[in-house]
């Protein structure tokens, strides 16, 4: 019996060859966008509240393997297919034509996008550890397809990515086999049932291995180095898709294994040094540092894509923080932030790639003043950065508010301060992005730039609507978040259309939005009542020191943005992680040279002797002991 889940997976599978076939023509690409719409529709038809089972299930090597999708997976799947659909639509028009002419393989791009979607759906719909690992590995490798497409810098970044990804995958693999050894089965239920009776040693091993493996995909500290370049250098649709959702698969894994299967009660058993630090405490601090550090790294970036990439890493920290606090409000905030981040991150990346599409560069020191040329893109980016910075009335504010609230209510003042520092960094760096791209002096070479084509602006603006609507009425999303919370065994958040209801303080975004707009309205009314009027002048229509300015004079430019601040924080961040990573690579190289020397020495028979002698000594030792 083919169920709704099978229909969805089959549709995603069938769309892969279609993507490879149709990606080269414009109408074909729109057809593919429609295919995503179909998949989205099929997904909506699934009942998110009850787990949907796949008809496909079989025995593999003595393990029952099957697929099922519960509300958690469904929530992530909605974001996945949505991001993919928007990315596909964004690239369907002129973007593909231009880049196709430049040598980008559109077949691989669209097929790769669809393969990613299928792999992620398989992961999100996994029904046991085998299917979880299958989905996990497929997701890791599918991401590589999108990253490799761009060539050049992307290849180095993707090599780095894949080494991290395999390391993460292998850690999950180790967790899997140790789970099997400890529990005797690879079913989710088996671990869930056996977790309370497992010894702490085993539990530590299982929890740590899974969490480490998933953290690599999340790019939590200290595994954060790979993500920004790997995602940033991918082609536009790939970048916006990967940046929106790909890394969140790690969060899904942690929510599933650590919180649902192992359970909070068990996690609390895992403490080091007589209850001083426990695993959850450790993870919250990891999450907080992941939120802070990459944000300040982002501030230093001069490539807009990298800046956003680093923010993606940092925002992941918020989500992990929310989920790992795991109270009603915090976990809801963390999960909600997944959706919110996906939306505004997609907008921001799309806007940046629209600028690249027109100007050919993402270097923040070579842009500026584009607001007059690309106003719609500017608007989209403005809305996006409001979301990213977590300011009302956009949706980023809601999820961040919930996480802050949870931190305060649960009594983590230090964590709260730390997250506020992180938000400060976010605000500063997104302003750098907006300013250096759109404000200031228009560069001479960009005089003739036009607004991005409609095929690119419309998806952006649609997403802006989503960001605004879900910001004003977060209840639309919160209902699914609550279902997802229930699915992983947490208390669901109590939501209303406008936000949260809780005894310690409610949030109603409808009111906040209304007040904000009322404020704007009052301001406008006052401005016009008082008689203020504005007149548009050309940027060059002013003069300084008696000199008329011409377009080739760079009278307003930015370089080394936030120099003072950077000077202050540099002692705190000297790239020690980069240094550690390269030290590891060097160590590997040295070990490799040693091993090579072993194979290439002059008299290979020497090793026979050494080996024999050592083995014989071992034999004697065994004889004596």
């Amino acid at each position, binding site marked *: 019996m083919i169920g709704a889940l099978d229909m969805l997976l089959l549709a995603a599978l069938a769309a892969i060859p279609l993507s490879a076939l149709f990606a080269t023509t414009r109408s074909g690409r729109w057809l593919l966008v429609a295919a995503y719409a179909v998949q989205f529709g099929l997904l909506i038809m699934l009942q998110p509240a009850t787990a949907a089972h796949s008809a496909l299930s079989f025995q593999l090597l003595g393990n029952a393997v099957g697929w099922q999708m519960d509300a958690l997976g469904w929530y992530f799947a909605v974001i996945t297919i949505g991001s993919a659909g928007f990315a596909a639509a964004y690239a369907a028009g002129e973007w593909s034509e231009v880049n196709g002419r430049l040598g980008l393989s559109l077949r691989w791009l669209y097929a790769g996008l669809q393969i990613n979607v299928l792999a992620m759906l398989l992961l999100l719909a996994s029904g046991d550890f085998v299917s979880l690992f299958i989905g996990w590995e497929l997701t890791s490798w599918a991401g590589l397809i999108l990253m490799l497409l761009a060539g050049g810098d992307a290849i180095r970044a993707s090599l780095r990515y894949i080494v991290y990804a395999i390391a993460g995958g292998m850690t999950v693999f180790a967790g899997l086999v140790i789970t099997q050894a400890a529990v005797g089965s690879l079913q989710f239920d088996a671990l869930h049932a056996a977790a309370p009776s497992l010894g702490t040693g085993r539990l530590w091993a299982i929890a740590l291995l899974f969490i480490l493996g998933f953290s690599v995909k999340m790019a939590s500290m200290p595994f954060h180095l790979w993500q920004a370049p790997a995602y940033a250098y991918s082609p536009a649709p790939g970048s916006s898709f990967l940046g929106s959702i790909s890394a969140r698969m790690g969060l899904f894994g942690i929510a599933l294994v650590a919180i649902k299967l192992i359970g909070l009660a068990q996690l609390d058993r895992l403490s080091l040094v007589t209850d001083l630090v426990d695993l959850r405490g450790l993870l919250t601090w990891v999450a907080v540092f992941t939120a802070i550090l990459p944000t300040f790294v982002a501030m230093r970036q001069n490539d807009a894509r990298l800046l956003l990439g680093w923010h993606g890493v940092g925002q992941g920290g918020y989500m992990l923080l929310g989920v790992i606090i795991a109270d009603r409000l915090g976990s809801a905030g963390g999960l909600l932030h997944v959706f919110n981040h996906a939306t505004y991150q997609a907008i921001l990346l799309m806007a940046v790639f629209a600028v690249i599409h027109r100007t050919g560069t993402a270097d923040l020191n070579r842009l500026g003043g584009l607001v007059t040329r690309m106003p719609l893109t500017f608007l989209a980016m403005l809305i996006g950065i409001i979301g990213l910075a977590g300011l009302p009335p956009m949706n980023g504010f809601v999820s961040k508010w919930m996480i802050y609230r949870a931190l305060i209510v649960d009594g983590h003042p230090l964590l709260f301060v730390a997250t506020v520092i992180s938000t400060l960094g976010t605000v500063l760096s997104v302003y750098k992005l907006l300013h250096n791209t759109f404000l200031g002096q228009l560069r001479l070479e960009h005089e003739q730039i036009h607004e991005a084509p409609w095929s690119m602006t419309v998806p952006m603006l649609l997403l802006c609507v989503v960001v605004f609507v879900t910001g004003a009425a977060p209840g639309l999303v919160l209902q699914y978040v609550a279902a997802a919370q229930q699915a992983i065994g947490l208390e669901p958040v109590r939501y209303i259309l406008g936000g949260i209801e809780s005894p310690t303080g409610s949030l109603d975004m409808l009111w906040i939005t209304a007040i904000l707009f009322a404020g704007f309205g009052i301001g406008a009314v006052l401005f016009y009542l008082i008689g203020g009027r504005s007149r548009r002048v050309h940027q060059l229509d002013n003069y300084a020191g008696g000199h008329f300015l011409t377009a080739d004079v760079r009278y307003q430019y930015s370089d080394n943005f936030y120099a003072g601040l950077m000077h202050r924080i540099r002692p705190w961040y000297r790239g020690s992680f980069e240094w550690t990573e390269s030290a590891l690579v060097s160590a590997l190289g040295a070990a490799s040279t040693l091993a090579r020397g072993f194979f290439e020495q002059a008299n290979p028979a*020497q090793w026979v*002797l*050494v080996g*024999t*002698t050592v083995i*014989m*000594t071992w*034999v*004697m030792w065994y004889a004596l002991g």
Partner: protein
Amino acid sequence: MRNIATLLLLGGLSFLLLVITGGLLFGNPPMLIGQGIQQAAPTEVGAANIVTAVVLGYRGLDTLGELSILFAAATAGGLVLGSTRGRSGRPGGFILRTGVDLLFPLMLVAGLYVVMHGHLTPGGGFQGGVILAAAFFLPLLARPQESLDHTWLSVIEALAGSAFIALGLAALFEGRAFLTPLFDHGVLGALVSSGSLPLLYLAVGLKVGAELASLLVRLSADDEGAS
């Protein structure tokens, strides 16, 4: 420095070997299968020389493998050295030539004798084969210009090896296991006895002789020049 380390390791190794094997019983082996073979060989195989009974009967497959190894070595040697061209060098003196001429038939007879009596007395196909090879090779030392016909050598080599296998397969066609001795055992100690063993040894002798002769010729040949 490295040699000193090697010596130290070697000393350690020989010490360990001596210690480990020191507890072995010398001169009184368990002989689990040896005993059985000694009792069964006269009736099962019929060879007076029990070593021959083992080599060609009980462990006949090892002998086939051994022939194959020799063949493999010769083939690989041919692959490495390439086909030989001419041989040069001063012809041997009168005494050498005459001596070799005299020796040739003697060695031929001696070789065949050793081969054919392998099932009765010490000796057999390998030893005899080596003597045969020497018999054919020595004249070449005396008269470097002459050369052994490689075609004939390789034909003998191939046919003798195939004959060994064919003798084994014959048993297989009769429904018995590969390499089961054929024919009657005959009288223990007689020249014509122990079934097909003498035939097998003849095949071994010819193959070994031909192979070693071609190997020797190849090694003694001159280089093909810088190629």
